[in-house]
């Protein structure tokens, strides 16, 4: 059998890379008699809620039949979902009724921790759970300083206040595996703050994407927008090493070499500027640095980019011209596309996306990338003014203070967390509070498990008994989102400010507490209750609505569960940078010690004899990260993940569809079933994210598939600094692997 290196190299050379036109398939008439749908039962109540499976937060109607959720529907007046949900949203109520859910607070009685170890859970009261957490956190604080306590949670006002009251600066965030590169780039070049979320694909006429795969991933607003645009005659050109659903639906699929999107983008920028195809009015009025950019990109010719990306120069030129001359045009970006935290050069690719969008006048303009119009919600600290906090140590385990662009946002740290704990750098960490995060979500998950073992105390708030729950000393069970109340603003698609109501579908099934109550309970047990005097989620929502001239009562009485302020869309005339313009030459990047313009840099890990394949990571439309693999319905749709290989390569490796293969990187190896297809470059292997659960308590998810994140090396803060990435992101696909029959 040929070595996998030789096979990968040989087959890549024979691969058709000049661009593919997916075949138009006509629907085939189905002569089979359709099974009649079952009669609809009488709906006894309909509750408004907001999907919490992903951050799109689609507004939904929950139809209740006799005390049980019978069906979930999209709210037609919600700008995000427009009356339609994705499979994740429709199936979300299955998790509500999952018997594996955490039911009561529990404490660990077995001090040994790790995969396969029974924690020896014992049911405890909420009071005892809070007391235990309070004692242990205080113990760490007194012995090792408040900074020895780490919060590994998603952003939440209550948790941030507790961290400040404790005096720890260590709030580790997952954004370095999610969208940190986009965040840093938009912050430095356009907004001075965060990144925009809204893609107005509905009005786009030309969609040029690089690794962007939201439609395949079932991201509701983008999937709908994409299909709408295509039906409306828009052209979509997809650069992706794999024929994803986004690519299959597109007008053109170009199987680019992984991690070389930057080269193609730079060459396109060069073509558009040198041929003066850009939107001169927009560029002149709203951007800075076009002359510097023009000079900088002259070296990046289409022929040069062809050498790097294997995309023919003629294709690059043609697409660049089409993109620049078809309005409105957009380069969509969301999270883990080619500008996301995938490669060492991704932040530069993200920068190129900003430039391409600006060159065609598609930033905050219809059919382009738009800043969501959100309601001006009163800040938490304004509703509940804070007391004085203790002075926190400046040095953090995330190295926040060492990353001048992303550091101030706090959106970093999960990639470097394991090494910081294991190496006790810059100081020892002793205790951790975790919420809505999992072991499997970070690079080199086994290493993170070792880091968790080193801690004296871990408290976890969650819904299901996930891997991180298995590592916990105390567990706080939270309600499923359908059991919660409150409100959520529209972010992922909002031409005007809109808020959606959350009304519980019924009484909670178990002895759970909401996240806010859990934080307050811990604070009180730590003797920090004064920081939460009078604080409650309900009051926060009500005060915020009152400041907008409404109230929670009014929202509850609304016929569609929405508060809307339908102002006409007014495009932005100025932006948030120091110059108030979109900066092609970024002063913030320059001052931070980063390249002020997107110059070429290859990805970090390139194929070698030992590891000849690029690793691609994809996501099922039915799944949400590592959170949905215990959902009974979702697992019927997408029951396992695969190592997807090109047919020619598989043949040379002697691997047949369904055979077990090992995928091995320099840090770990995983075993998966092979799926053999034609629609993937021969030098790539693709794995769907979210599987490989080792928590036996997740009965449907346990032992199914494998976690591709195990293959990805983690970083120390110093290694991250050396990458010179202003987003400090995790290179989540920047790893090469070998594949062989198991």
């Amino acid at each position: 059998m040929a070595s996998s290196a030789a096979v990968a190299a040989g087959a890549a050379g024979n691969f058709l890379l000049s661009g593919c036109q997916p075949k138009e398939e006509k629907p085939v008439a189905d002569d089979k008699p359709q099974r009649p749908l079952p009669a609809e039962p009488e709906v006894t109540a309909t509750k408004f809620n907001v999907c919490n499976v992903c951050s799109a937060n689609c507004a939904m109607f929950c139809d209740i039949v006799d005390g049980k959720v019978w069906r979930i529907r999209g709210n037609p007046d919600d700008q995000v979902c427009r009356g339609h949900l994705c499979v994740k949203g429709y199936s979300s109520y299955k998790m509500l009724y999952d018997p594996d859910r955490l039911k009561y607070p529990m404490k660990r009685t077995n001090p040994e921790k790790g995969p396969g170890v029974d924690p020896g859970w014992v049911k405890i009261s909420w009071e005892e759970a809070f007391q235990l957490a309070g004692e242990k956190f205080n113990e760490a604080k007194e012995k090792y300083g408040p900074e020895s306590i780490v919060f590994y949670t998603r952003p939440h006002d209550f948790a941030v206040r507790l961290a400040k009251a404790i005096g720890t600066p260590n709030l580790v965030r997952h954004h370095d595996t999610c969208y940190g590169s986009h965040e840093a780039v938009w912050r430095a070049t356009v907004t001075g703050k965060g990144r925009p979320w809204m893609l107005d694909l509905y009005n786009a006429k030309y969609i040029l994407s690089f690794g962007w795969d939201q439609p395949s991933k079932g991201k509701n607003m983008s999937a709908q927008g994409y299909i709408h645009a295509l039906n409306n005659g828009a052209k979509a050109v997809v650069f992706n090493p794999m024929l994803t659903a986004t690519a299959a639906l597109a007008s053109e699929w170009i199987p680019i070499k992984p991690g070389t999107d930057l080269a193609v983008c730079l060459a396109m920028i060069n073509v558009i500027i040198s041929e003066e195809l850009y939107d001169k009015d927009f560029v002149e009025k709203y951007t800075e640095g076009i002359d510097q950019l023009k000079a900088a990109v002259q070296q990046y010719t289409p022929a040069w980019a062809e050498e790097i990306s294997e995309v023919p120069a003629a294709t690059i030129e043609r697409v660049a011209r089409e993109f620049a001359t078809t309005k409105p045009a957009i380069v969509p970006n969301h999270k883990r596309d080619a500008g996301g935290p995938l490669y060492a050069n991704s932040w530069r690719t993200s920068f190129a996306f900003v430039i391409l969008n600006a060159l065609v006048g598609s930033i905050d303009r219809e059919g382009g990338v738009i800043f969501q119009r959100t309601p001006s919600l009163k800040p938490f600290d304004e509703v509940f003014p804070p007391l004085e906090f203790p002075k926190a140590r400046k040095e953090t385990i995330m190295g926040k203070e060492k990353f001048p662009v992303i550091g101030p946002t706090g959106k970093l740290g999960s990639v470097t967390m394991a090494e910081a704990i294991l190496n006790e750098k810059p100081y020892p960490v002793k205790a951790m509070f975790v919420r809505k995060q999992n072991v499997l979500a970070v690079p080199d998950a086994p290493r993170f498990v070792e880091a968790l073992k080193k801690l004296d105390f871990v408290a976890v708030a969650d819904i299901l008994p996930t891997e991180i729950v298995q590592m916990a000393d105390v567990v706080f069970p939270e309600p499923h989102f359908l059991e919660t109340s409150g409100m959520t603003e529209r972010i992922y698609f909002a031409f005007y400010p809109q808020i959606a109501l959350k009304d519980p579908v019924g009484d909670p099934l178990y002895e759970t507490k909401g996240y806010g109550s859990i934080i307050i309970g811990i604070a009180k047990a730590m003797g920090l209750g004064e920081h939460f005097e009078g604080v409650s989620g309900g009051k926060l929502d009500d005060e915020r609505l009152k400041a907008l001239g409404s109230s929670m009562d009014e929202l509850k009485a609304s016929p569609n569960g929405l508060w809307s302020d339908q102002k006409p869309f007014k495009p932005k005339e100025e932006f948030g940078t120091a110059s108030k313009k979109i900066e092609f030459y970024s002063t913030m990047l320059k001052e931070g010690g980063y390249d002020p313009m997107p110059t070429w840099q290859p990805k970090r890990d390139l194929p070698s004899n030992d590891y000849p394949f690029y690793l691609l990571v994809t996501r099922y439309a039915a799944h949400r990260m590592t959170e949905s693999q215990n959902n009974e319905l979702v697992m019927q749709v997408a029951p396992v993940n695969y190592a997807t290989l090109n047919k020619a390569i598989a043949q040379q490796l002697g691997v047949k569809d369904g055979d077990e293969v090992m995928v091995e990187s320099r840090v770990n190896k995983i075993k998966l079933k092979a799926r053999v297809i034609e629609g993937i470059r021969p030098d790539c292997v693709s794995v769907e994210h979210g599987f490989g659960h080792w928590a036996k308590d997740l009965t449907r998810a346990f032992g199914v598939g494998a976690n591709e994140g195990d293959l990805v090396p983690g970083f120390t803060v110093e290694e991250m600094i050396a990458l010179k990435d202003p987003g400090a992101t995790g290179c989540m696909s920047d790893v090469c692997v070998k594949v062989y029959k198991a």
Partner: protein
Amino acid sequence: MYALGVCFFSVAISWINTMKNLLERGGIDIKKQEEENQQWIQGKGRGILYSFLSQIFRDEVSWQKVSDFFQEENIKPLKSVITQLPPEKAQHLWECLNNLRESMGGAFKGKEEESGSLDLRREFAYLFLTPHGVYPFESIYLGKTKLLMDKPWEEVRAFYRSIGIKKDKKEMHPEDHIAVELGFMASFSYLSGDFLSYESEEKIDEEEKEFLIQVQHDFLEQHLLKWAPGLCDDIMAKTRYPFYYGVAVLTKRFLECDLFLLKESIKMFTVKID
């Protein structure tokens, strides 16, 4: 004895409250009935055993709770129930009770009480709160989706509703949790008094008695006995402690015996009415 009686009564209180409404609608003087019932509720063997088992499945056990159950005051009314059984069944049930009592010794004696309790607390969580053990819901055993609140849950609720009662708001478990179903049986056992021991037939009129007996019979046959024996088998297979093994064996055996007793009672009614 009194403390234990109160404790058991409190398990059944949610059902009894809703039963009050039912009986009031039927024209029964509840206050008078309650006064009269003080004696027979506490003395009701079936109710005591159902309540005990309901508690065991509902929450962690303490040495106190279990040893109180084996006090003579509780065993005596149980004996009067057991004597109604054919000798072979009676002997079998006695053996189950004795085995459980012995396993208690194993679980609690020879160790510090706290340590014994901790083992059982761990086992409770292992068996009933994590998927290592069992899912004590009818929905899981008889439903297709293996999720909570599946069709069997709807049917259990429909059963309760058909006799005009519903679960108390304070009850956190769904209607088809084993503890709730056993609690339902406990409440009806108490309400039907010691009729089965043929001692105080005058306390409730014939029609009410027949109704109460028929309800218990139907609930056992249509629900508990359709899935609880399977649950008990799973507990026997999965538990690491003789105590819960003993609980499972006792539950399985008692449910079978109780169906026998209820069927016998129904026969008696038929004879009388004829």
